[in-house]
Each structure stands twice: as structure tokens, then as C-alpha cells.
């Protein structure tokens, strides 16, 4: 009778099979996340189709320059995360930890810049859901409100996902620091890496549709 490694769960034959199941499960989860963002994107696209000029004018209130830098930062965080996955696979504990901390730093940078943009939005009077936060003087303020609601819903949902991603990265950094079970870390980091890359995918779509297309 063949013996399985200790880390292979009872329902699997081999570690490879278990890893494939882990990854397939994560992809299924990410497909549901795609539908979550997709519903919002569809609502936004439909409203943009109905009110193109108003949405385009409202979009000019947003800070595309700040988010251009933010996009580059987020893509760089995706790179450091992918490299961390390589590093852990090579059993390089401190390099993995360094790359994870770098990813966390870029993530924190992104969220801080997003927070600064939100503060700026408030002072510009384009926050519809805060008392006294909305005094937009452009074209059709009531319809423009729709644009700003979609903008905050999409970027807010993205920031929420990023915050969860940051918590997961902190946990991974802690587990890497402890370095109890490197083989398990390889699997864990790959799953968290999928999630972090999905955040990149969501942001690329948000930046293109909200900030660039209406310009």
C-alpha cells in the first residue's frame, strides 16, 4: 500500500492533485467575483449609453493623473507578488518575506492615494451619499449623480477587495517569517497571488471605463 505525504488531505491521491483542486477552486471563486464586478460594470455601461455627454463631463472631475501612477504601482505590486511565489517555491525565506513586504508597501501606497483622491472628491463636492458632500455645478447634476454613485461603488468595492488582500498578505508575511511548513506556503502563496492579481484585473477595467473612456 502506497503512503501519502502528511500534507495530502484524505480525499486526494497526490499533492499535485490537491494543488490542482486548490487552484480550480480559487478560479471558480474568482469567476463569481467577476460576476460581482460585472453587474456593476454592466449598470455603469448601460447608464453611460443612455447619458453619454453627462457621464463624460462628470468624469473630468476625477484625478486621472493620480490614478495613472496608482495603476503603475498596482501592476508593480502584481510583479512583486508573482516573484514572491517564485521565491517561496525556491525555498528562499527572506527573499519571499522581502517581496511580500514590498507588495504590502505598494498596496498601502495605492490605498493611501485612493484615500487622498476621495478627500479631494469631497472638497470638490462630488460625493452624493454624504450630507453636504454634493454640489456639482456641471451638466445635469441629478444625472451626473448616477456617474458618481457608480464611481464610488466600483472604486469602493475594489478598495474593499484590496483591504482584504492586504490582510491576507500580512498573514502570509507572518507565516513566511515563522517558516514552519514551506511546502504549504507554496500553495498558500499561489492562492493569495491569484486573488491579488484579480485585484489588478478589476482595477485595469475600472481605470479604463471610468477614467479613460469618457475623456
Amino acid at each position, binding site marked *: 500500500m502506497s503512503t501519502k505525504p502528511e500534507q495530502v488531505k484524505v480525499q486526494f491521491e497526490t499533492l499535485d492533485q490537491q494543488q490542482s483542486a486548490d487552484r480550480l477552486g480559487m478560479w471558480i471563486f474568482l*469567476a463569481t467575483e467577476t460576476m460581482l464586478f460585472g453587474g456593476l460594470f*454592466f449598470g455603469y455601461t448601460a447608464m453611460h*449609453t443612455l447619458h453619454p455627454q453627462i457621464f463624460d463631463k462628470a468624469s473630468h472631475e476625477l484625478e486621472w493623473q493620480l490614478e495613472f501612477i496608482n495603476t503603475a504601482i498596482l501592476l508593480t505590486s502584481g510583479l512583486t507578488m*508573482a516573484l514572491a511565489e517564485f521565491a517561496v517555491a525556491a525555498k*528562499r525565506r527572506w*527573499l519571499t518575506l522581502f517581496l511580500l513586504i514590498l507588495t504590502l508597501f505598494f498596496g498601502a501606497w495605492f490605498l493611501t492615494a485612493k484615500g487622498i483622491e476621495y478627500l479631494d472628491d469631497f472638497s470638490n463636492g462630488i460625493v452624493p451619499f454624504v450630507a453636504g458632500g454634493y454640489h456639482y455645478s456641471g451638466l445635469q447634476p441629478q444625472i451626473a449623480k448616477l456617474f458618481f454613485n457608480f464611481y464610488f461603488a466600483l472604486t469602493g468595492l475594489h478598495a474593499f477587495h484590496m483591504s482584504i488582500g492586504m490582510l491576507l498578505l500580512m498573514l502570509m508575511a507572518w507565516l513566511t517569517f515563522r517558516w514552519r511548513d514551506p511546502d504549504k506556503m507554496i500553495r498558500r502563496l499561489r492562492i493569495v497571488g491569484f486573488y491579488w492579481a484579480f485585484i489588478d484585473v478589476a482595477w485595469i477595467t475600472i481605470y479604463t471605463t471610468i477614467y479613460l473612456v469618457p475623456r
Partner: protein
Amino acid sequence: MRVLPKTAWIRMFVAWGMMLVLVGITVGIAVVFPGIGVWHSALNLLIAGMLVFLVMFFYMHLESSPGLLRMMAGVGFFWMIFMFTLGLADYFSRIYHG
């Protein structure tokens, strides 16, 4: 200590560089040439598609994933395209017929 896969690292850096160049191009199209009208939107969306592909292919390791995972990665997008096509067909036809 195992050896780091150098070619994989180089590939990842090349992919990252390509992504940054594409972001620069898409911003350039939107900001420098907004006068090209509907083409700038189409180009922005096309480049976004390329960026998403690069992220999925390299950062999400689809380049080295089995067919089942690649299919699963496409399924979410397939259903989203389905939703957009049916939904927008409704909106466009309503506008069209006044």
C-alpha cells in the same frame, strides 16, 4: 536552498514592462488624442483587454496552467460577455426605436 528560476523571473519583468508601456499608451490615447472620438474608446478597451490578458497569463500563471484551469479562467469572462451582449442589446434597441 533551491535555485531561483531565472528565465521565469526575466519573463515576469518583461511582462511587467509591457504592461507599463501599454498603460502609458492607453493614457496617451485618452488624454493626448481625445479628439479621435469613438476610436479612442475602442482603443482604450482593446488595450485594457490586452492588459487583463497579460495579468492573467503571467501574474496568474495561466501560461503554465493545465487546460481545465484556462477554461475556468475564461468561463467568468464568457458569462460576463453574455450578460453585456443581451443587456446592451435591450438598451440599444430601445434607444434605436425611440
